[in-house]
Each structure stands twice: as C-alpha cells, then as structure tokens.
C-alpha cells in the first residue's frame, strides 16, 4: 500500500526509467501483471489490458485506490509503488431496482 509520503510530497522523483510492477485486477479476482516505467502513460496499460481481455475501453473503469486512472497520467503522477494494484470496474447503470 502506498505510504503517505509517496504522494506529491515525494522528496525526489524516482529514477528516470525506473520500472515497477503493476497488477490490474478485475472484480472476479483475475489478475494481469504489467511491468511499466514510472513515467509511462497508463494509457498503454489500459489499452494492453483491454486488448488482452477483448473489451471496449469505454465499458470499463480503471481505479487506483479510489482515484480514477486518467489514461494520460503516469504511475509517478498517481504515486504508484511497485506491486500496487489497479481495479477494473464494469460500467454501472441504474434507474430503479428491477
């Protein structure tokens, strides 16, 4: 889990090109592991995941500890650490109880 100190107040940025492992978990418990550089846009992870699972990106939501993962942000922007996991949620719609 991310420490409080790993947010924006991080003393020095991680080494340029440092590689971390990220786990993308869907709600059925299936996991896909990614190795990414900390400054790589997470769009790459999202696209790779959707391609692997054959899903349309607009039907799923990627959430890191409550924060919606913006495709343009990097693991560094979100303060992700090695081994952190991203949740994949399905689209939710509602009008009433069926």
């Amino acid at each position, binding site marked *: 889990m991310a420490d409080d100190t790993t947010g924006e107040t991080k003393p020095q940025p991680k080494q340029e090109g440092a590689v971390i492992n990220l786990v993308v978990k869907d709600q059925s418990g299936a996991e896909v592991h990614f190795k990414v550089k900390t400054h790589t846009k997470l769009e790459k992870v999202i696209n790779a995941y959707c391609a692997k699972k054959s899903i349309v990106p607009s039907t799923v939501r990627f959430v890191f500890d409550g924060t919606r993962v913006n495709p343009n942000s990097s693991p560094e922007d979100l303060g992700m650490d090695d081994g952190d996991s991203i949740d994949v949620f399905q689209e939710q719609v509602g*009008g009433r109880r069926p």
Partner: protein
Amino acid sequence: MELGAQAYQQKKAAVEQVGWGRGGGEDLSLGRGLAHAAAEAAAAAASAADPRAGREQFARQISQFRRSLEARRAADPGARLAEGRREVAEEMARQAAAAAAAAAAAAAAAAAEEEEEEEEEEETSVEVVEIEEESSSVEIVEVEEESSVEVIEREEESEEEEGEQEESQEEFEEEEEEEEGEAPAPLGGIQLIAPRGDWQPTEAQLRRFRQVTKLGDQAEVLLIPNKGTELIRKHFNTLAEKQWLNDEIINAYMILLQVRDTVLREAGVGAPRCHFFNTFFMSKLLQLLKPPPKQGTYCYAEVQGWTKTPRLRAAGQASAEEGLLGLDYIIVPVHYQSHWTCAVVDLRRKAIVFLDSLDYGNARALMALRRWVADEARDKLKQKWDTAHWRVLTPKVKLQRNSCDCGVFALLFANRVALNRGFDFRQDDVTLWGRVRVANEILDQKIYDHEVGPWP
C-alpha cells in the same frame, strides 16, 4: 425469389420490432430507444420494397413527427411540464406507437409484395411502392391524432393513479406535521422536503441538453473535464429523458460537488464540510462485484488506502491532511441492483442517512458504512469509536414516480444535503429539468447553486 426471401426477413424483423414497440408502451423507460428501433425497422422493411424511396419516406415521416413534438414542446413548455411525468411518458409511448405503426405498415407492404411477387415480379414491386407511400403516411398522421385524443381520455381515466399520487403527497404532508415539533436534526429524521424551487432551464440550456443527449457517434468526446476522465456521447446519452444514468455521469457530478465544497469553504459561508466518494466505494467496500462467497461481504482493507492523504487530495478534498472523520458529511453514491441511491454519513449527529428516491432500502450498505466509520477511526485516528449506537435513518424521500430517474434524484439529494438545504424538487421537475440542469452543470464544470440552507 431472392427479393421475396429478403422481404420476408425484413418483415420478420419489423414484426419483432412492433412487438417490442408494444412492450415499450407498457415499459415507458424503454420508450425512447424502442421508438428509434421501431423506426429503424420500419425503414428497413420499407427499403426491402424499394431501398431508396422507402427509406427516404420513413426518414421524412420520423423527422416530421419529431419536429411536431419539438414544436409542441417549444410552444408550451410550461403546460407540458406541469402535466408532469405522465404527459412525457405518453409522448414517448406515442412516439413508439407511431414508429411501431410505421413498422407495421412497412411489414404489411413487404408482405403484400412478397405475396404478389410470386406471380408477377417487376411490375408489382413498383405498385407496392406507390401504395406504401400513400397509405403509410396517412396512417402515421392518424396514429398521432388518435393517440393525442387518447391522452386526454386517459388522463380522465387515470384518476386512480392520480389518487395514488395524492395519497403519497399526503403522506409527506402528514410527516411534515409530525416532525415539525421535533428537535432540529437536519438529517436525523425530520422531513427533508422543502417547497419547490425553480428548476426551469433557459432556452440555451435546453438546446445544449438536446445536443449532447441526442443519439450519434457514441465514442465522440464531448467534454474533457479539468478533473476525471473524458466524457463521450455515450455517457451524456444516459442523461436523455427516460434513460438510466451511468456511473460516469454520477462520478463526474460528484467531482463537481467536491469542487463546490472547496469553493464554499473558501467563501466561509458556513456550509457543511463534505467529502464525496465515487460510485466504486460501496462496490469495493462490500465486494459487490466479486464472485461468491466474498460477494456482498464487508471488507475494510479493500478501501483502506482510499482515505490516505494523497488519495483524498487527488479526489479534491480540501482538507485532505485531516482525513474524513472531522467533516460534517461523507456522501456516498450507492449502486445496487440497477438502483442509484445516496447514503450520507452525518458525522456530527452520529447517524447514517439513506436517501432513496424509491424507498427500497439497503440495510447492508448502511450497516457497512457504520462499520466503516469505526474501522476508519481505528485505522486513521487510532481511536476506538463505538458506532454500533449510531442511528441509521431512512427518511421518507420517495419522490420518484417512474422507473428511470433514480440517478438524477441521487445526484440532487447529494447536491442539496451538501448545502444543508431541503429537497426543493419533485418528479415533475426532475423528469426533464433536473436532467437538463445536471447535463449543463457537467458541461460548464460547475454546480449552479451555492446558497446554503437554513439547517443548523
């Protein structure tokens, strides 16, 4: 032969659509989509007879029909909205019926063609086109006129329904009387219904709403917000009348409410200090999307990281360093079994309040929130909070009178609670105007209301 088989297929599809159209009359939440589908089927069926003429004919009719609806709306919006939910619903039904009738006409034409085609081939197909153009256009007009008569009749007939509505209105009033004498505890069980506010949108807002909610390229990006992810037409389409809101719209609105919270705090107007979670919080806390046996079971660890300072900061919480438990309200949009509701943790008065526009209840979510407060106190404050005695309240705010608007209600509940204001809207305001308001607020990236209510 080949043409005959094709016509048969088209007819079959059209007949199926007609069947759906009828269903649409009953289940009005589908009215809009069905009307569209039926119209498409009609056009397809027509095109089997003569691809170009048929399609053009039906496109003309549908657009003519839409124009007449729009004209009627523009001519007298006040009256129409005063008529309320039923009027709108009937309009949808009428649209679906007209489209279905068109599909039926087309199917009949296709069938006629199919039969005749066995004897003569080329000549009959020409003939059929003529018949179709004349008869079906007349039919559409007839359907429209008939059904508008029907509306009037039905209004008289539906006294039963109206009676029901009045009854529940009385319920509210009764409650008001009952509760008035009680100690002031805003969310603690007093009536939350306030006098109706002004929800009528401007012409420009309405136009803008129509633009983003009309059908079109679903992947078209309509908004790149300052915070959060881009919103595409697909998401805005869920704000169209009768449609079910999706999580993107709810979450986009929660972000805006958090922004307003910061603005209010800076203004120092005494508004409650709030935190707004997104729709995934409850799903995660209750592991709702996991397979059994974990599904539906409480798990604090799932959201433990959500309330750490950097994450709260990322969520736009103005006092991220202090955590959440010193705030006034924590507002949680809840999605459960296709129903949107709004849960509120009232930290000052030690209560969990559930705002459910249909009054179905969701005890599990409320118990989970209560437990979460205790776990959060233990984890972040290193304190032992005995929340088992906190009250769990489900005030009567059953304002929804249809089966599609709960998402809008949940957003407006959250909006008003955060201002310490009562719920100054009714179903009639929400049906269209509430949706117009929400769509415009998202497009403008700001909540319009900043006036704080009278609650202590």
